[in-house]
Each structure stands twice: as C-alpha cells, then as structure tokens.
C-alpha cells in the first residue's frame, strides 16, 4: 500500500483526499482501510482498499513516503486500534491524553453510553528541535485569540524568530461520526453534519447528502440543485467576509474588521430571509431542499445581492490600497507549490500557491456545471496571495448566487429517495470556503450509515502550519495560522471527551465535570 499511494500521488500527480478505517470484524473478521485519491485535472476519483486481518491489528504506514497520511494514520490508531508500523510520529491526535490506551471508540463493539475510566498518569510529549536548549519556549493556545478555536501550538523561538513548532489538536471532539453510526437515521444525519462546523455547515450537509444520493443512484429535482448552489455560495460569501474581517483584526486593521463584517451582515440577513436562520440553514437534506424560495423573497434577495456587490467592491478597493496592510501580509508564511502538492493541501491555501484546484469546476455537482464562474489562482504562496484568492473568490460567489437565483428553474424542491442499498461505499466532494470537504460514506442496513468519515479541509491544511511558521516572526504567527482559515471543530469530530490541557498541567475530565455541577 505505501508504494502504491506514493506512486499515485508522486508519479501520477494525484491528490490525497481522505482515508478511513472501518471495522468489519463482526461480519468479515477484518478491518478495512480506504484511501481516497483524486485527480482534479481529470475529475477522477480512486478508492484504494487495504484489509487488515482481525488478530493482527497493524498495517504498514504510508506516512514515511506520503507525509499527508500522518494525521489519518494517527486517527486510525487511536480510534480503531490498528498500529501503523513505521509511523514516525505515532502520538495521540484527537483523543485526550487521559483516554485509556486499550479503548477504541470507532470499533463497532464500543458503546458510548458511560464515560470510560480515565488514565490519571498521562501526558503529551511535544517534539523539540535538536538544539532545543538554545531556544525559549512560547506556548500559543490552547485557544487562538482571534479565530476563537481551540488548538495549542508550542513554539521554540530564537528572539523573534520561530525555530521549531509543534501542535496539539483534539480539544474539541464531540463524537459526531460515532453518534451518526449508532443513533441517527439517514434523514437526521444532515442536521448533525451541519453542526460539524459553525461556519461552513451547509458544506458538510451537502457533502453527506451528495455521498448518500450517489450511493442510492438518486438525482434530486432540478430546482433543488439550483437552490443548493445559492445556499452554498451564500455561505461562502459569509465565510470569506468573516475571514477578511478576522485577518484584518489579526494584523491590527480593526477598521477592516468592522467594515467587512458590516457587509457580511447583509448576507446573514439574506440567509435568514431565505432559510429561516442566519447560520445553520437546515436547507440541504437527502432528496432535495426543505424550503422553496418564494418569488417575492427571490426578488428581495436579488436586490440585496447587488447591494452586497457594490458595498464589497468599494470596501475591498480601499483595503487593498493600504500600504500597511500589504506590508503586513506580503512574503509572510510562505508555502511553495511543491510543498502544497506534497501535503495535498486544499482550497485557497493551495490556490494561493499556484495549485489550480476547485471541486466545483473539476468535479461538478448540483448545478455548477451549468453556471459560469472562475477560480482565482495566485503563484506567490504567501498570506497576501491567500487574502487575494479569497477576496476574488467572493466576487465569483456573488456572481454565482445571482445566477442561481436568476435562472432558478421551476418544479418541486424535494423528492423521496425510494431505496438506499446497503454496503455501498460512496464519496461526497464539496468545495467549501476552506477547500474541498470530503465525506466518505458506507451505507448500512436499517436506515443508518455504517461508516461516515468527515474530512474537513482544515484536516488536510493544518499539518502544513509548522512548515509555514518556521523561520517567521512570532508577531506573524497569528495571521499565518489564520491564513489557513482553520476550522478546528471541523477537523476534530470523533469522540466525546471533556478535557483541556494547558501549558504544563492537565485538567482531567472528572475535574471539569465537577466544575459544571
């Protein structure tokens, strides 16, 4: 397997999309590990499956040859108990430090009703550069001050320069995949999928729905497809404007924060008008969408979109003329095209490093094939390029919302899915604001999913943060991490754990439960 994946990604120029481990021990006496690889330029997808026999819970690690498999294999290790032999860095990723070593939540025989007995002696070992003694340690987190997401970075600094970086994620598990497999039906999963992320919720609902509809061989009604595009693009505008505001804030341009968010509030109003909520639209469900767009609402929305375009254009023009803003972003946090490809990064991060990839264009879904839009790509690979890619992407989204609303075909917005066959593996690909969101789904019998693997773009993008941070100044760390537009809660979703680890001291889940009472 390692050589095959390396060949496919290296010599054949593929992109690593996701990897999922599934427990089949009850029926087939084995586990399976599926790698999903993609070729954006050809619109191809390839699923490579490896079997791991029960009793021999190990497999050859892909990571030494393909670095982007790092997180996936660590996750398979802690959630399924399959050891990647030869993995250079087999530390915990998603589960808390005090989670018992012999308890694997994604195994089918694991019941999540009661909290497990937690280890009291556990800790997390951070990596350090070889000459660590020469540097000072600066803890950064476990809560990012501007993006308000829980992640912990540990910097080794030489004066202002960052010499070594390590990160610990996993503070935000909610066990959504397990919940979906054990408690939910096909119909209710989209609502949990939407809660994977507070910003790109519809992207997850769409990716799940797409995977499910593909498994069932179902085509949603035409009108539903167009409404889905409108909803997804509205969400992208809101997400990019949110990011532009937060990025401004991170470099001390607070006027930008206020003004970008002023424009953003218009799109929130629009979402509320069309879906009934500012966020968590609850629109995309298997079979179509839940709400139709009434004629008078459609007209109001189109007027609103023109206003948004006008106000956004005026503001972006002013912001991009600011020399200080440019100076804070230019040349900061570089990522070369080779590194971007090697790590299979996604979305604006890849597109700012000269990798032209866009699932809307390359794997057309819903009505995207019938709509006109462009994919902005920059070559520079710095934070400024990422800013510009997102800024221009916003124009494309405004254009798309307009097209989707103007060309809305008639007809029903929902049709029932008659039959969903069991044991079908399927992939849903959606270009979210942060990159391609990949959902890997295996259908089960009795109206429930057998395996649902959510791979949010941040999961692919965050591992390159140390590469971008190395050699940069501490003052830029915030905006470099921010330039991924990381969504930590998206990247972490596997098991319910209450744990927070600070600088040195660990606060156990039991203590936290005590505080709550």
């Amino acid at each position, binding site marked *: 397997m390692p050589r095959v994946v390396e060949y496919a990604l290296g010599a054949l120029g593929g992109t690593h999309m996701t990897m999922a481990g599934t427990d089949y021990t009850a029926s087939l006496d084995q586990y399976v590990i599926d790698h999903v690889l993609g070729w954006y330029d050809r619109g191809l997808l390839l699923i490579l499956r490896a079997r791991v026999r029960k009793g021999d819970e190990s497999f050859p690690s892909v990571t030494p040859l393909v670095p982007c498999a790092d997180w996936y294999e660590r996750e398979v290790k802690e959630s399924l108990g399959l050891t990647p032999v030869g993995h250079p860095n087999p530390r915990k990723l998603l589960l808390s430090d005090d989670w018992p070593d012999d308890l694997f939540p994604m195994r089918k025989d694991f019941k999540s009703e009661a909290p497990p007995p937690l280890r009291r002696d556990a800790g997390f070992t951070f990596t350090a550069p070889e000459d660590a003694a020469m540097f000072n340690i600066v803890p950064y987190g476990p809560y990012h001050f501007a993006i308000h997401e829980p992640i912990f970075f540990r910097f080794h600094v030489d004066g202002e320069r960052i010499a070594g970086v390590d990160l610990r994620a996993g503070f935000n598990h909610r066990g959504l995949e397990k919940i979906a497999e054990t408690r*939910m039906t096909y*119909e*209710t*999963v989209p*609502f*949990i999928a939407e*809660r994977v992320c507070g910003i790109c919720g519809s992207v997850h609902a769409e990716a799940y729905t797409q995977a499910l509809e593909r498994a069932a061989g179902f085509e949603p009604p035409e009108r539903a497809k167009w409404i889905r595009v409108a909803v997804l693009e509205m969400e992208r505008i809101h997400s990019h404007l949110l990011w532009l505001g937060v990025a401004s804030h991170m470099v001390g341009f607070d*006027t930008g924060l206020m*003004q970008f968010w*002023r424009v953003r*509030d218009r799109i929130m*109003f629009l979402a*509320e*008008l069309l879906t*009934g*909520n500012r966020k*968590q639209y*609850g629109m995309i469900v298997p079979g179509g969408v*839940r*709400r139709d767009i009434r004629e008078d609402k459609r007209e109001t929305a189109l007027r609103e979109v023109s206003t948004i375009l006008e*106000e956004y254009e*005026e*503001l972006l*023009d*002013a*912001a*991009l*003329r*600011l*020399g200080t*803003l440019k100076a804070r972003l230019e040349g900061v946090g570089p990522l070369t095209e080779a590194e971007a490809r090697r790590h299979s990064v996604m979305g604006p991060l890849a597109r700012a490093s000269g990798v032209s990839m866009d699932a809307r264009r390359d794997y057309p879904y819903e009505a995207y094939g019938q709509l006109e839009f462009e994919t902005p790509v920059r070559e520079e690979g710095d934070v400024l390029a990422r800013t510009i890619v997102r800024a221009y992407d916003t124009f494309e989204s405004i254009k798309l919302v307009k097209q989707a609303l103007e060309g809305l075909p008639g007809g029903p917005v929902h049709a029932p899915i008659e039959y969903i066959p069991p044991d079908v593996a399927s992939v849903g690909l959606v270009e979210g604001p942060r990159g391609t969101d990949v959902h890997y789904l295996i259908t089960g019998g009795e109206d429930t999913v057998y395996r649902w693997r959510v791979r949010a773009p941040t999961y692919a993008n965050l591992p390159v943060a140390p590469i971008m941070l190395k050699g940069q100044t501490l003052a830029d760390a915030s905006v470099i991490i921010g330039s991924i537009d990381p969504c930590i809660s998206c990247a972490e979703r596997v098991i319910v754990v209450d744990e927070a680890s600070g600088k040195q001291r660990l606060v156990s889940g039991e203590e936290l439960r005590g505080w709550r009472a």
Partner: protein
Amino acid sequence: MSGILKLLKIGLVRGRVTRRYPAERTPPPEGLRGRPVLDFDACIGCGGCATACPANALTVEEAEGTWTLRLFYGRCLMCGLCEEVCPKDAIRLSDEYELATTNREDLEVELQLRRVACSGCGKYFTTRRVLEETTAEYSELSGGYSDDFRDVITLCPDCRRRKWGEALADAYREARYES
C-alpha cells in the same frame, strides 16, 4: 484616492449600522426558525417528534399511568423536524430567538398525558388521546362505531395479536369441522 481616505469616506457615508439592542430590536423575519412551542391541547402523545429529533431535545418517558414529553431548549437545534412530523400541528417553531437565561429550568417544558390500560391484560399501552383520535377517525371512515371495534382498540398490541390469532384459529377449526 489613498486607501485611508477611501476608508474614511466609507465610514462617513455608510455611517453607524449597529443598533442599541436590547432597547432597539429588529423584528424577526417571516419564517424564522425560533423556539419550538408546544400546544398542550392539540398534542395526542404519539411521540413522533421525539423519534424525529436529531438532538434528543425531545424525549418521551412512559410510566404506569402517564406519558411525559420533555422538551429541553438547551439541546434544540431549531431544525424543525418535529414540526414536520407532527400530525396535529401541536409543535410549531415560533419566531422567538432570545433563549438566554441563568436558570436551566427556564429551558425545560414538560407535557403530561394520561395513558390507558389494556382491557385484556391491564398493561398501560397508549395515551387516552391517541385512542380517542383513532376511534374518531375510525368512526368517520366506517360511518359508525361498533362494539367489535371497541373490543379490539382497547386491547394492547400483544393482546390484540393474541385475539386475532385465536379468532383465526377458531375460524380454521370451524371450517375444518364443517367440511
């Protein structure tokens, strides 16, 4: 024009857009998915909403003589699936969006209905309102209410199965005897 001047102009032209909430409120738009409200008179206690609820905000507890539906707003996603499945429009999303409170109990609603016992084995099996509802529907469809129907509908599913089974067996024996 330099960026700073342009920004200044934007600030002056667009002005202040924030409102003095909570003194100044924005009216909720039509179709807002806000706090779900229960209609205590309309609910018959079928429990469909609790089955549909993805977040377990709605739960049902069945005790001897009572059927209790609990709605905890702290878990509610405002998805509206309960509203979609309810056959009696007894649960509806309102346009209330202010749920913040310092008291957890403010977020809990409880609805209790009486359950009825099986006329055969005495086990409690459904709410009185479901029974009344079914009876009314049957009477409307069949144009009247018969004693046979009452005998069957007041039985719990287990007793009903046994009763039908016995009736079938009797009919079979009789048919064989006659031939």
